[in-house]
């Protein structure tokens, strides 16, 4: 089977690329903060997991967002992850 896909099906766009490379940076930070705020383990461990998960989270988000069918879906996915992470952070920090 040919693995060469017509360029138009790839739907490369500047906006999606920006979402993957730059937009995912603050979202990855928010994911790390959410983990540090909400994980049900001692503070030292939450802080460790949260702060050291930011870089791997960015790579995972970038890889995921790159596959989005359109720029709108890419930014939407980032918005969804941000909302969940922000909610977890607020709940986690508010409860402690």
């Amino acid at each position, binding site marked *: *089977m*040919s*693995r*060469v*896909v017509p360029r138009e*099906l*790839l739907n*490369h766009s500047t906006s999606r690329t920006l979402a*993957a*490379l730059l937009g995912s940076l603050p979202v990855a*930070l928010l994911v*790390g*903060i959410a983990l*540090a*705020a909400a994980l049900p383990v001692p*503070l*030292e*461990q*939450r*802080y*460790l997991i*949260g*702060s*050291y998960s*930011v*870089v*791997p989270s*960015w*790579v995972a988000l*970038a*890889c995921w967002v*790159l*596959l989005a069918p359109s720029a709108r879906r890419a930014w939407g996915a980032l918005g969804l992850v941000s909302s969940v992470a922000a909610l977890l*952070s607020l709940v986690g*920090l508010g409860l402690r």
Partner: protein
Amino acid sequence: MKLPPRSFQIYWDAHAWVGVIAALLLHVMFFMGAFALFRPELNRWANPAAMSAPAAAPVALQPLLTRLNQEQPLIGKDRVAFLPEPTGLRAYWVAGAEQHEFRYAPGAGRLLPLHSDLGTFLYSMHYLGPIPQGIYLAGVSALGLLLALVTGLFIHWKDLTRQWFQFRPDRGTRTWSSDMHKVLGVFGLPYQLMYGWTGAVLSLSFLTVQPAFVASVFHGDASAAAVARGQGPEPPEPSHRLSATLPDLDALVARAVRELPGLKPNWIGIEYVGDERSSVSVYGEIAGLPFGSAGVLLNAADGAVLGVARPLAGVFQRFEAWFFGLHYAHFGGYASKLLYALLAFATCAVLVTGNLVWLERRDLRRAHLGNRLLERLTVGWCAGLLLATSSVFLVNRALQRLPETGGTEQAVFWLVWAAGVGAAWLGRSSRRVAGVELLLAGTTLALAVAIDLVTSSGGLHDPIRRAVNAALALLGAASCAGGVRASAAGTRQGSGRGRLAQAAAPRPGRAARAR
């Protein structure tokens, strides 16, 4: 795992673009990383006055401190530090933006101003330190490396085992460069992943991620975050009332070792020298404990213990000891450092062949201006960097009679590198230029070693000096071998035979191109 064709192509494009954009900066970081691993050894080699063998027993610090204070009054300085290294004792003082470094010369029995900071300069190039905001550029490049590695892993996952072993040096440029890119990339993958992650954290995290965590998770309380991290105590702020007395350093080091049995100090620093609240930090490794960094903070005046940072005290500290210990090769001695250096050079080859694969696949005849620029820039940048680094070693040896050569070495480094990049635009064949620059670099390194051997006066009894000379000679030989090969390829390229022969060869099918 076989990716759907669309995902495969998107990751392929991401891998290629991120790789080609970040490759040149990453090349500098990995190339200089190999030298950074041996910073103390290179600094020792570069400073002939301190070249006799390191003292077997620890050097008494108090007489050195007293004598340095007589020569250059230390009271009021922000910090005076002594660094006992396997290669000898180093010291420095800091006052505001001013910093002066010294090495202990066993023959003279005193601290002498540094003749050259060659090792430190090459180390700082590893994180692009001499470039304005270079450390952030290094961090962004490390992120790019991670993304290129992960996307590369995705696209090659289906045939990873084959890519591990398949190398066909007798084939055309496109095939052998692609094979080399994949073989060295797969072999070095754990090493490169580790450096991508640790490098990004070291370059970016402390100024971006950590402040955000302190502001949110710790509600702005930095000391609470420091406690959670298991950090050692911070030195007290100065009172700005000077008592004009120096601490008894040897007694304080002995006190610290009593507090932490097995501590082998590698950093002894006096903060705010002569101040009423002056303190002394004694940091080091606990013998026999992997990644066992520890330290004691003492009051400079009476030796009271202000705080102890115990080794691997909490989960955070244990993780960071391993995380950063792997980056700095704080394990396995010279064997692991040599392995790291080899992997660093292999990664440089991965980066250069990555650019070559880009050019060979997308524009065999270099019809586009952008690809012609990329080819010449890659050649000049990479071969020029080796030539510039070699020149630093030669300048150091050639000017060893001057009291200070650090500034000249750095000026020569930048000039030669710029000339190397500029020279890449001359001539019809970029490979021939690469060959000439590599041959020059090899000759320059051989000259540096030859001058060192000829002008040495008993210094060759020093095993560190012998080892540095041997490593430089090996690097020079490898550079000459690469230069001869590139020149031969350049001759074929210049005559057009190689390119045309490739162009005339049967084109591989789509599936092969996609690989």
